[in-house]
Each structure stands twice: as structure tokens, then as C-alpha cells.
């Protein structure tokens, strides 16, 4: 291919003094996720629990109209912290979040390692913190879509269908709890995903690691709980710990008879471990071999 005889023109512009380097990284991560085969379909499917619970909010205000259909299940349709806990701590939602993490997050660092893109990133005026922030925000964007957005949607629908702010008067902290839990679960899952993504140069292995770590922890809980009947084994499971903390943050009854602080400590410990893995695996000094 011949070299184009177009002259090299110097750039006369100025560098952005208040730039936020994590922004282009997050933007690119989101764009590339949407380009993945089947991602849009999976994301749409992940909103299925939201759709069902939104329908629940509507029916809760029309119990008489749906009397035949619900046949005594109206106790599940009381819109209170338990309703929100049922949504946020549901296996279904957590499963879809895991699938989104696999599709949008497994390759976030693994692909950069495989294609040696870290060399290009860190040859720019970019801190490791900026790089990781961009990656965390990519995942958090999708996870908050599945948590924060539905939470506020339910509140809004409740206000619209009931025509009152009674729910807010009874539980004024509920919007904050929804926001707090959404941030906690998005932050935890983002660190969890990125750490496992950084352990492999292959997106598929990283995907397997993500799924295996999540489900194996739950299987271990099932085995030990089945043998010893001790609810403390719930601490072995990532899912159970998330459900415990979700229940407490949303002002609902915890799922297991284990102090929620222990579950919070397990999640915090895993987050610290993920941070340590990331700081070891993502290094600027490795740029030039």
C-alpha cells in the first residue's frame, strides 16, 4: 500500500486541562458491549424481572380487578421494603446480572491483556486508577440499569397508580436504600468481574471463572448446609451474602439467621481481595518488555 503523500499537519489545539480519562474508557466499553452478538437480547431479557415486578406494582393498586387471577397471592403484592427485597434479592435478577457481567465484563481486562493494549493505555498520561475507574463504570452502567433504574421506576409507578405519596411517608428512607443497595451491588460485582477478568488473557476463561466462582460458592453452601444444618455456611455463598446485605439495607428481614455484618465483612473482604488482584495485574511498568 503506497504511503499517501498527504502532508503531516501539526495540531494547533490545546489539551483539555480538566479532562476525565475514565470517560472515554467507560464510553468505549459500553459501545463495545452493545456490539457483542446477542448482548442486546440478553439485556432485554434481564429486564424481565423488572417487567414482572412493575406489573406487580400495577396489580397492587387494582387488587379487586385481578381478584380471580391472583387467588390469595395478594400478600406478595404489598408494596413495602419486603417487595423491594424480593426484587433485589431474587435469584432471577442476580442470575441476569451475572450473565450481563459475563458478556460485558469478562473481556474488559482479559482482552486488553491478550491484545497487549495496556501498553497503549499507559503510554498516555493515564493513572492505573483512571483505567480501572473507566472499566468499573462500564460495568456499573449496566448493573445500575438493572438495579437503580427499576427501583426508582417501581416508586414512580406506585406514586402514579396510587395517586399518593403514602409509601414515601411510611418509608421515607426507601429511595436512599434503593440507591445505596444499587451502588453496593454494582460496585461489588464490578470489582469481582474485573479481578477475575484480569486473571486470564482469554475472555472465555474469564467467563468460566466468573460463573464458576459464583455458582461453586453457592454449591458449597448447599453441601455444607445440607450436612450440618448451620445457617453460618451461608457466608460461603456470594449470592447469600448479597441477599443478606440487600435485606438489611432495604429495611427487610434477613434471609438467613446470620448477623448481616458478617456478610458485609465477607463482601468487603472479597472487594479488597479484588482490588489487590487488580493492582497486581494492571501495571504501568509492564508496558515495555
Amino acid at each position, binding site marked *: 500500500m503506497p504511503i*499517501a503523500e498527504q502532508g*503531516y499537519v501539526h495540531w494547533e489545539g490545546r489539551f483539555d486541562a480538566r479532562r476525565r480519562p475514565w470517560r472515554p474508557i467507560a464510553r468505549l466499553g459500553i459501545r463495545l458491549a452493545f456490539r457483542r452478538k446477542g448482548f442486546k437480547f440478553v439485556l432485554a431479557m434481564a429486564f424481565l424481572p423488572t417487567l414482572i415486578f412493575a406489573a406487580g406494582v400495577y396489580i397492587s393498586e387494582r387488587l379487586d380487578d385481578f381478584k380471580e387471577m391472583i387467588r390469595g397471592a395478594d400478600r406478595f403484592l404489598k408494596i413495602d421494603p419486603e417487595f423491594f427485597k424480593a426484587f433485589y434479592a431474587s435469584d432471577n435478577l442476580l442470575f441476569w446480572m451475572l450473565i450481563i457481567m459475563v458478556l460485558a465484563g469478562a473481556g474488559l481486562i482479559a482482552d486488553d491483556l491478550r491484545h497487549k*493494549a495496556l501498553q497503549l493505555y499507559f*503510554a498516555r498520561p493515564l493513572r492505573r486508577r483512571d483505567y480501572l475507574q473507566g472499566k468499573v463504570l462500564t460495568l456499573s452502567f449496566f448493573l445500575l440499569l438493572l438495579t437503580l433504574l427499576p427501583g426508582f421506576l417501581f416508586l414512580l409507578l406506585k406514586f402514579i397508580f396510587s395517586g399518593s405519596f403514602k409509601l414515601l411517608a411510611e418509608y421515607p428512607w426507601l429511595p436512599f436504600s434503593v440507591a445505596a443497595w444499587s451502588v453496593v451491588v454494582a460496585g461489588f460485582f464490578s470489582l469481582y468481574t474485573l479481578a477475575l477478568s484480569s486473571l486470564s488473557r482469554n475472555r472465555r476463561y474469564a467467563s468460566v471463572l466468573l460463573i464458576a466462582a459464583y455458582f461453586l460458592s453457592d454449591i458449597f453452601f448447599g453441601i455444607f448446609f445440607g450436612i450440618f444444618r448451620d445457617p453460618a455456611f451461608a457466608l460461603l455463598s456470594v449470592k447469600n451474602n448479597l441477599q443478606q446485605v440487600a435485606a438489611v439495607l432495604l429495611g427487610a428481614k434477613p434471609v438467613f439467621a446470620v448477623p448481616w455484618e458478617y456478610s458485609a465483612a465477607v463482601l468487603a473482604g472479597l472487594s479488597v481481595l479484588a482490588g489487590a488482584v487488580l493492582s497486581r495485574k494492571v501495571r504501568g511498568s509492564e508496558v*515495555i518488555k
Partner: protein
Amino acid sequence: MNIELQDIKFSYGPVRALDGVSVRVENGACGLLGPNGAGKSTLLRILLGFLRPDHGQGHVLGHDIRKDPFAVRRLVGYMPEDDCLIPGMDAVTFTSYFGELAGMPRQEAMKRAHDVLYYVGLGEARYRMLETYSAGMKQRLKLAQALVHDPKLLFLDEPTSNLDPQGRVEILDLIKDISSKKDVQVLISSHILTDIELTCTAVIILNKGRIAAQGDLAALRQVDFSLYELRVKGESGPFLRALAEAKCRVEETEDQLLKVYLPAGFDRRELFRVANRLGVQVRHFVRSQTSLEDLFARTVGVD
């Protein structure tokens, strides 16, 4: 002064990678040479601010490499040796992305990406997915991302590795154009000595963490010893042995051309005396220039 390092020392644990390296690089293209383990990569890491030297000071484009590595990286372009890409992107998005990461506003980075892709010869292929690029195209793409933010100084790490002869010539043409006409200074780290000879006016040779030689390439070729090309008629064996005994290094090419390196202080007329004594006619006698290969071999102590 583009690069100025004074007495830089750096160790990886007990292993001393750089030992008292002082370097001055001025305008033009400069080659960075050295055998494996000489400290080239460590020197580049220090210049880009990834490693803090244990001792010594350094400035790149007037910025302190210890205190202001970000300013250095903003003004410097780096083209790595490895094939680096982000799958799922086209060349324009890729190049503008790294412009943005360097601190350019988004729209200007995009505009500039088009310009530099045309400049490196990827204008027609700029919307193709990077996974479909050939080795030569990837090499040009790496050069484009290094140029997108209009650096004042370019670090090129093995810029012609994995290229076919035609691709190599084209990349070298680009490098020559950048360094000689575009007011961008270039530091090229390469094992291919002919690439350095073709593109650089100055050279730094590292060996075992120390500077083995540095300066203007033309001047370095003249240092210490002289190279002569001879053709002789007659029995050349005894003549070559006599020269070797006189501490001259002799190489014979396939077409019987003798390249004789005279040690410092050796009188070239002595060649004729030896030839006369051994009954050999000298039919051709020309002073030649020392090649970079010779210079490299001599300074790092290999044959």
C-alpha cells in the same frame, strides 16, 4: 534539548540494569542500540516515567521524569513493538480513542485521527475492523496512534519487526519523513542496524547497563581505527596471516575484497611493505567507512 539524562542508575533488586547512564539527545532521529539485557527497555521505561531511577536526574522535553511523568507522556508518542489493538474497533475509532486519552477534545481527536491515518497510508482502510489488518497495516496503525496527539518526540520500539521488505521500506520512509521534515524528534530502539543506519543521524549504544558509545553516527564511524578495502593478486594466505599478526582485523568478502581494520597508530604504508615482502600485488586500495555493524560489534565486544 529533547532528552537529557545524568548519571542514571537503576536496579531490579540485586540486578543493576542501568549504571551511570548519561545521555543527551538533540534534534533529528537517534537510534538506541544494544544487545539483549543491555538496558534499552529499562531506559525507555524511565524516559516514559514508569520507573523512578535510583539515582540521577533526567529531563524529557524540559519536563522532569521524576516529578512530571504525565507531562512527558502527553508530549511523547510511543509505538510499541508488540501488535497492540482493541478488538471490535475500526482504525478511526481506535486512533481517536487514544488521542482522547492523551487529553485531546473528542471531536478534535476524531478529526486528527482521519488526518494521521491518511498520512501513514491507512486512509482507505480506516473503517475496517482492526482484526482484519495485515502485519504491515498494524504497524502503520501503531504509528498513527503514536502521532495522533502531535507529539514532539516519538519513541519507536522495533518499528520494522515482522514486516516484509516492501513494508519495511515504507515504514522507514515514513520515519525519515517524520524526523527530517515534520519537526518531530524520533528515538528508535531496534536490533536491525541497517534500519538505524537508514534513518538516524545519531546513535546511543548501551552495553551491560552502561553507555558504550553515543553521538553523531558519522563521527562515531571514524573513531579510533580505519577501514580499508583492498584487492590483491598473488598468494593472499601468508599476507592475511601477516596482517593478523600485526593486529589488523581482516574480513574477506565473496568477491575477494579484503576489508582491513587498522588499529590506532598503525601506518597504512605498512600494508604495502608487507605485501611487497610477501610478493603480493595490491591492485585496489580505498579507504572505507566503518559500518554501524562494525561499530556495534566493537563497542559491545562481540565479533
